[in-house]
């Protein structure tokens, strides 16, 4: 098993003829919890239409949101947008009570692409990945670890892994990259 360090800098972790695994640049991340009745008001404040179906994503500029549960969303944005999002939510808190929590440093994101990116993910993910269409995503499990999976194209994914689980989850991806290339 590949032993990875516990601290990750952005950059390529592994690249073979099968797939590439790249740690992406840090970004702002928020966990949003809100009731159904408050979604419209929060969408207007954020200037981003929050998706209402689990697994759907929406994008406005560089800010992206994905619905994770009936009352839960994850929002990602460039660092420069973080203050605007936070203050927009604070401003409507009285009218639309919600919880917006900064989780930027809780997770790291890796991009997985290449001709066999989907095969690589099946090493740890028991789900039928064909059911997740491009431009959708899900929260799911990868090798026993909860991850948020974003499918950007047929063979291009992003995986948000909690920082403390990253050495475990990413070492399987790195090993898998090598093994799939040898097949």
């Amino acid at each position, binding site marked *: 098993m590949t032993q990875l360090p516990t601290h990750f800098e952005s950059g390529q972790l592994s690249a073979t003829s099968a797939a590439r695994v790249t740690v992406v640049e840090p970004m702002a991340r928020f966990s949003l919890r809100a009731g159904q009745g408050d979604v419209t008001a929060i969408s207007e404040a954020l200037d981003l239409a929050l998706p209402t179906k*689990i*697994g759907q994503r929406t994008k406005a500029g560089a800010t992206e949101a994905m619905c994770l*549960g*009936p009352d839960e969303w994850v929002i990602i944005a460039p660092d420069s947008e973080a203050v605007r999002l936070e203050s927009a939510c604070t401003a409507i808190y009285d009218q639309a009570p919600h919880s917006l929590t900064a989780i930027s440093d809780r997770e790291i994101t890796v991009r997985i692409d290449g001709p066999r990116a989907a095969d690589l993910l099946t090493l740890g993910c*028991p*789900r039928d990945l064909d059911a997740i269409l491009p431009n959708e995503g899900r929260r*799911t499990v990868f090798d026993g670890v*909860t991850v948020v999976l974003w499918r950007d194209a047929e063979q291009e994914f992003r995986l948000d892994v909690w920082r403390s689980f990253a050495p475990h989850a990413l070492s399987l991806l790195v090993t898998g990259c090598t093994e799939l290339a040898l097949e």
Partner: protein
Amino acid sequence: MLLIKCPYCDETLPELEFAYAGEAHITRPPTPAEASDEEWRDFLFIRSNVKGAHYERWRHVHGCGRFFNAVRDTVSDRFLVTYPAGGLRPAVDDVTGSSK
């Protein structure tokens, strides 16, 4: 591997995304201080342990995070129906009849 339908995600997904959470439809005594020792013991420890259709709670822990209820046949391990937490308990005849 069991395939379980999450009523919130509306998808049938592998068991590995879920966690079992005990028997369903067990009501906590509203005023525990007034409950007798026997009532409190029954609430904490006494479970039906049925052979056949079992009403139980599951949590989609690696997904939407929600608790929901399921009826599972403890003999065949087949899931007869799943429904949102807080929903009414479906009659055994309804769920077993539809599975045969």
